[in-house]
C-alpha cells in the first residue's frame, strides 16, 4: 500500500473509471463498425480517440452520449449503465456532460450569448443579469472577447466557433467534456491556442476530457492516454506505449511522415 495520499487517490481513481465501455457492437446494415469494442476513461485524464476515417469514432461518441443505441454491449458512465438508469437520472447525467460537435453545432438563429444561455435557461430560473454575467464568465474562460457575445455564429471565424461551442459546453459546469475534432479546420496557431486552453481548463476546472482528434500535435500535447480504433476494437495505451505498438495500422499512424515531424518537434525542446 502506498503511503502518500496522492498515490492512494490515483489508485482509487483507477478502480472506478468515469466511463467504461464493454463489448460494444455497432452495425449499419451489414457493415460492422465496432466489434466488441471495450475501453475505460479514468477520472481527471484527457483521453484521445483516434482511428482512420470510417472506423466509428463519432459513432462511439454518439453511443456514449446515448444518442445512439448499440446493437450489443454496455456503456457505463459514473459506474451506472446508461441503458438501465431512470429518465431523471439520465437527465442529470447528460447535464453533467459538456459536448462540442465537429462543426460547432451552435444554433444558427441565436447569438453566441443566447447559445450559451440556452442550457442555463432550461435548467435554472435565472434573471437576465445573472445570465449575462455567466455569458461573460464562459466567454472569458475560453478566451473570447466580450463583444463576441452579440454575434451570430455565421459572423464568427472557424476558431471562434470552436471556442464559442466550448463556452456553451462549459455553461452547465460539466464534470465530463466530450470534444469531437476540436482542432480540425484551425490554423496551427489557433489549434495550438486551443490545446493550451484545453490543458488550462483541464487543470483549473478538474475536468475529465474525451477527445476525438486527428491532430497529432494536439494528441501529443494534451492527451494522457489514447485509444486507437482498429478493426472494430480499441487499443488503449499511453502515447509512448502506442508508439512502440507493433500493429501495422498503429505503427503507420504514429510513424508516418507526418507523425515523425511531430515527434521531432515534440522531442526537440526536451532533448
Amino acid at each position, binding site marked *: 500500500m502506498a503511503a502518500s495520499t496522492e498515490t492512494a487517490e490515483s489508485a482509487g481513481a483507477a478502480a472506478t473509471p468515469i466511463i467504461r465501455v464493454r463489448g460494444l457492437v455497432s452495425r449499419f446494415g451489414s457493415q460492422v463498425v465496432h466489434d466488441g469494442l471495450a475501453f475505460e476513461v479514468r477520472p481527471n485524464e484527457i483521453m484521445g480517440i483516434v482511428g482512420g476515417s470510417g472506423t466509428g469514432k463519432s459513432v462511439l461518441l454518439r453511443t456514449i452520449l446515448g444518442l445512439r443505441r448499440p446493437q450489443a454491449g454496455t456503456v457505463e458512465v459514473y459506474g451506472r449503465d446508461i441503458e438501465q438508469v431512470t429518465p431523471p437520472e439520465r437527465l442529470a447525467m447528460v447535464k453533467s456532460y459538456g459536448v462540442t460537435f465537429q462543426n460547432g453545432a451552435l*444554433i*444558427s*438563429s441565436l447569438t453566441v450569448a443566447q447559445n450559451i444561455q440556452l442550457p*442555463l435557461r432550461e*435548467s*435554472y*430560473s*435565472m*434573471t437576465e*443579469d*445573472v445570465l449575462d*454575467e*455567466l455569458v*461573460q*464568465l464562459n466567454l*472569458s*474562460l475560453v478566451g473570447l*472577447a*466580450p463583444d463576441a457575445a*452579440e454575434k*451570430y*455564429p*455565421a459572423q464568427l471565424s472557424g476558431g471562434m466557433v470552436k471556442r464559442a461551442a466550448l463556452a456553451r459546453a462549459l455553461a*452547465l*459546469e460539466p464534470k465530463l467534456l466530450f470534444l469531437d475534432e476540436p482542432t480540425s479546420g484551425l490554423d496551427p496557431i489557433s489549434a495550438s491556442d486551443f490545446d493550451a486552453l484545453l490543458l488550462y481548463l483541464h487543470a*483549473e*476546472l*478538474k475536468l475529465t476530457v474525451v477527445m476525438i482528434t486527428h491532430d497529432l500535435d494536439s494528441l501529443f500535447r494534451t492527451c494522457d492516454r489514447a485509444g486507437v480504433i482498429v478493426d472494430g476494437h480499441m487499443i488503449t495505451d499511453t502515447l509512448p506505449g502506442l508508439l512502440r505498438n507493433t500493429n501495422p495500422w498503429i505503427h503507420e499512424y504514429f510513424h508516418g511522415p507526418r507523425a515523425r515531424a511531430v515527434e521531432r518537434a515534440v522531442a526537440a525542446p526536451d532533448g
Partner: protein
Amino acid sequence: MTMLALHRDGADWRLELSGDWSLGGLEQINAELRALPGPITGPLTCDWSGAEHPSIGAVWALLTRLALIGNAQLQIRHEGHPPHTIELLQKLNLELCTAHGKRAVALPGHEGAIARLGRWTVLQGTEAERVLGFFGRIASVLGAGLSHPRALRFPSVVRHLHETGVTAIPIVSLIAFLISVVVAYLGAQQLSRFGATIFVVDLVTIAVLREMGVLLTAIIVAGRSGSAFAAEIGVMQLNEETDALRAMGLNPIELLVVPRVIALMIAMPLLTIVADAMGLAGGGLLSLVQLHIPPAQFVTRLREALSPTTFWSGLVKAPVFALLIGMVGSYRGMQVRESARELGRMTTMAVVQSIFLVILADALFAILFVQIDF
C-alpha cells in the same frame, strides 16, 4: 436563509459564506450580493467553510460584485477550503476589468419613421432589381438551351417532373374531386328553386374548366413544390454547395433553377388536365346521386355547355402559374443566408408570395379573356 454575512472588525472585514453555492442557488446569491453594503474599505477575508458545492458561476458572481463595491486595491483572502477555481477566476475577472473597463453594450440607434420609409423604399428598389436580374439569368439559360439543348439538363428535368408532377397526382385529384362535388351540391340547392337543376352541369363544367381546376392545382403545387424548391436550394446555400458549384465554373441557375422551372411548366398543365377530369367526374357523380341525371345525359349537356375555348382558357394559364411558382420558390431559396431561421422565413415567403402572384395573374387573365372575348 442567508448565504452571506458581512462583519467588520476594525479595519478588517470578514465575509462568511454558507448554504447552497451551486448554480441552482445562484439566483439567491446574486440577490444577497446586490444587497451587500458598500464600499468595503479594508482587507477582506472570505470564509468558505459553510458553502456547499461552490460552482464556478457563483464564485464569479461573488468576485465581480466584490470588484464593484471594493476599492481598487481591495485585498481579498480566502480561507476554509475555497474552491480550486478561485485563482483562475480572480485572474480572469481582473483581466476583464482592466482590459475592457466597464462593459459597454452598444444599443442599436433608433430610427425615425421617415428613415424607416426611406430604408424600405430603397430595399424594395434593390429587391425589384434583383428579381428582374434573376428572371434575366433564367431567360438567358433558356435562350442558350435553344442552341445547346444539353444546357437544359434533361435527366434533372425528368427527376423534378416526377417529384413535382407524378407524385402530386393523388392529392390534386382528391381535392379537385371534392371541391367540385361541393360546388355542384351548393349549385343544385340554388338552381332547384327555379327547377333548373340541369344547369348544375353548366355550372360545374365552366367553373372547373375555366377557373377551379387550374387555380386549385396551382395552389397545391405552390404549397408542395414551391416550398420544396425554396428549402432544397436554401439548404444548399447554407452548406455553401451553390458557392462550390460557382467555384467549379458551373452555373447554379442552370443546374438548379432552370430544370425545376421547366419541369414545373411541363407538369402543371398535365396536372391541370387531371384536375379538370376529376372535377368533372365529381360533378357527374353528384348529379347522378343527388339530381338523378344519368351519365349519358350529363355528357350531352356538358358538350352543349362547352364553348370551344372553355378548356383552353383554363389550361393556357397553367404554364404561366408554373413559371411564377418555380421562379419565386427558387429565388427565395437562393436568398437564404446564414441561419436555419432564414431558411424557414424564406420558405414561408416563397409559398405566400407564389400563391399571391398566382391569384393576381389569374385576375389579370380574367380581365384579358373578357377583353379579347376568349
